[in-house]
């Protein structure tokens, strides 16, 4: 029955993505009126506008354009960039790979940054350490990610040049160099995510630690170590995954800012450039990809949570 559940959720996700693609298309190509003018600006010549209209097949009715585009996407053809003329898939590929590397690195850094203080705060709830950490969290929460990135940049790439200030990645860069290039941006992302997650994790852990079955275990004489590791944490995994899913929402958007600050060639900077230049096919493909990654990651977190909770496994 678990398989049926997975299939159902995947179907739902697919439908959502299709609807998002529709929304995107409407927003970027239908609503704004004359797309060609939007892309090229008011000073464009009539011939340039005509040429663009033919490239974009603007003479065809909108629904047809949409289906042409959608069927292309489903077959892997993401269109052609208006700016460079190259197939979008070729441009998007390496950028996505870079961003995935950065995200994975950020996630690995985030885990200890979030979990260790959360556990400490939960176990020593109300004490001075808990309060100090809460204050620190509150202050860090107030620093916007772009400011934090900038500060880290000054601090560790300029004042003490431990890391390069611009993370230019060429094809063929080796792993070690990749790590050096991505450390600062990954660290920024990790800190922001950890700070957002910390509060929620702490509260969830406290709730689990105070649950009735833990108290019942104490009354049975179970030692505290066992209670925390074998009884509390397993029940905390599912809610913690939920928090992680929320962080992913931030991550997919947060890379945009961080990549800009560090000039990292990922899909965040790709999106920003495409938006500046009104490169519609690239915008559409990138946003769709972002949504797909976000939905996919959420789905995974959801399914893991269900797999970890015996009660939910049986519910369907």
């Amino acid at each position, binding site marked *: 029955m678990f398989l049926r559940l997975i299939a159902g959720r995947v179907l739902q996700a697919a439908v959502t993505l299709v609807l998002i693609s529709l929304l995107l298309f409407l927003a970027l190509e239908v609503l704004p009126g004359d797309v060609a003018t939007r892309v090229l600006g008011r000073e464009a010549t009539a011939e340039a506008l005509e040429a663009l209209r033919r490239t974009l097949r603007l003479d065809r009715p909108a629904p047809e354009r949409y289906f042409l585009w959608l069927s292309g996407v489903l077959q892997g053809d993401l269109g052609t960039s208006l700016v460079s003329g190259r197939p979008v898939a070729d441009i998007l590929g390496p950028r996505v790979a870079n961003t995935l590397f950065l995200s994975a690195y950020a996630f690995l850094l985030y885990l200890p940054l979030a979990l260790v203080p959360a556990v400490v705060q939960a176990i020593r709830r109300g004490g001075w350490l808990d309060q100090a950490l809460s204050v620190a969290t509150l202050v860090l929460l107030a620093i916007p990610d772009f400011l934090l990135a900038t500060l880290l940049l000054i601090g560790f790439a300029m004042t003490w040049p431990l890391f390069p200030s611009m993370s230019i990645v060429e094809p063929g860069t080796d792993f070690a160099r990749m790590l050096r290039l991505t450390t600062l941006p990954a660290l920024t992302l990790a800190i922001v995510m950890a700070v957002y997650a910390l509060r929620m994790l702490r509260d969830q852990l406290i709730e689990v630690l105070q649950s009735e079955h833990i108290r*019942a*275990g*104490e009354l*049975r*004489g179970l030692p505290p170590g*066992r209670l925390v590791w074998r009884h509390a944490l397993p029940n905390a995994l599912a809610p913690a995954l939920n928090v992680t899913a929320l962080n992913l929402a931030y991550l997919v958007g947060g890379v945009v800012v961080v990549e800009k600050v560090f000039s990292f060639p990922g899909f965040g900077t790709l999106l920003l450039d495409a938006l500046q230049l009104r490169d519609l096919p690239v915008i559409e493909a990138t946003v769709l990809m972002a949504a797909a990654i976000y939905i996919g990651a959420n789905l995974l977190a959801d399914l893991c949570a269900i797999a970890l909770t015996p009660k939910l496994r049986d519910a369907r």
Partner: protein
Amino acid sequence: MWISGSAEMDGPAPAPLVVIDRLSVDYRTALGWDRVLHTVSLEIRPGETLGLVGESGSGKSTLGLQCLGWRRGLRRQAAALRVAGADLDRLDTAGLRRLRGRRIGFVPQNPTTALDPAWRVGDLIAEAVEVHGVARGAAARDRTARLLARVGLARPGVAQSFPHQLSGGQQQRVCIALALACDPDLVVLDEPTTGLDVTTQAQIVALLARLKAERLMAMLYITHDLGVIAALADRVAVMYAGHLAEVGDTVAVIGAPAHPYTRGLIASAPRIDGPPPGAAPLTGTLRRLALPPGCPFAPRCDHAAPGCAETAQRLAPAPQGSPGHRVACMRAAALAGDGDGRPAAARLRTEPSTFRDPVLTVSGLSVAYRPPGLLARRAVPVVRGAAFTIAAGEVLALVGESGSGKSTLARALIGLVPRAGGTVLLGREPLAPGDRARSPAQRRRLQYVFQNPDASLNPAATVGASLTRAARAAGRTGADLVAEALAAVQIDPGQAGRYPDELSGGQRQRVALARALIAEPDLILCDEILSALDVSVQAGVLALLARIRAERGLALLFITHDLAVVRGFADRVLVLFAGTIVQEAAAAALFAGARHPYAAALIAAAPRLVPAARPAPQPEPPPPPAPPAAAAGACVYLARCPHRRSVCGESPPPARPLPGGGMLRCHIPVDELAREAPDSRDGPGEARH
């Protein structure tokens, strides 16, 4: 000579297992320290079962936890707190850990939250055994299997189940197995059957009685239910507001209660074997913030003398003279043997001869439940072909266990749940199946009171506002309506400006009643309105309802699972099982005459206060499996009925008329069932179930 379990022994009494001497406990609150136990002294001997009785707020749960040495969030002062030879007051955490689960067991109130949802129950038990070094590996698993069998869960596959896959009763059995895992000397049980069905409760109590006879194990059984105490406890201690009011042998305390509070408790508990003559139920509520320095019960005591509130009461031998029976009341001697001179409580029932036209006529009512989801699954019948009438001014009780369909039936009547078939007439007018299609007059005449007082009042509206809205909807206007309505339910009209969270549970339920009454209805559907209230409060609400009904000629459909209430309050009874009405009879006739096997089982399972006939421990019958959806041609009670015959599985039983009115659905002829029916005063050992 001292009594342990079912044996009597000679010789000097062995040292007590539990010694509590002048124990006081304070809880830390936002406003400082709150004293929850006041210099309580108690003893429990090895193998003895001590019942600890009191209403909520009496401190009984706190006392139970102290027997496990609980320290969190409290401060304690005691001359002695010794269990199994260990001084719990001075022991360090490691020492306490060694004792808990090993020498002292604990069965919690709510089994569902007490079991780790991510662990299989067999593993939980094995863990308890291994952690305390009693057995390891295969030996531990073996022991687990034997423990589960001992608590009646011998069915294969239970040990591999997760808690949510078991029923409430099964979960509680697992908790009992957990408590017994290492063969403790003492088991503390904190209201273990609250929240369970009455039949499940009877099974758990029977299990405990059996375990008690098999092992030399002391029990501290905490409850508010005197009936269970009568069935299980050797001695009983009565607590009020953190003080010990009375303690002694169960027979002595229940047979001849010395403390006015104990007397009130006994009188308040609706009893299936009838109230003792001249007993007055408890009035008022426990106000923890307004306790006098002397006897805490003085504000509510009918016999309080001027000095009672100032003088601290001490335990002294009770006037009736049975050994070990002590009471903390300075007026005990004066009140002894007094009956208490007040007139017998007014009979709650009115005579049936005055009933007139039917207010509600139901025929062929069926309700089905369609499981949610896109895949069309077959509808499950929840109520099958119910038919009955309610006359003006009559109280019809609807009795059944949880899942029997009684709430669904009521909701179908009020229009919240769609009907799969049947008709309902209010007076002579047909009622539409959905509430939205009904006229304002129909809405006014038929009112509904819900079970949970916390959810039935709008927390954001004052009492007065809620009542005004109800009045307006019923087309009644007037300046004094609210005050009048509140006075009718015995609430000070000055409370109209309060919000629900400032009132007690009993008061909220009265306001809900007032809201129903303000519309001047013909019939009120009461959906288990007493279940969420404390025993002492229930009696008050019931008396109020009886009075109002007598004054206004109001009809009631009273849904309950408590047969004792039915006996004292209802005119007629409908017994519901798996959606089918299996018996309809006058209340008195049900308890005295022929009854359907299910009705017999319910009556036998109801706890009783008369401790004389102590049931002999029997081998426990296998727990009944969940009733399967009855095949169209069979009797719904087939799976559980002890009298089943081959014809029962082949055709649905006919509705046989009963001599005093009403009917009974059974293949067995009525006079045969009448012979089977014992006098309902007998203890649970008598009727087979």
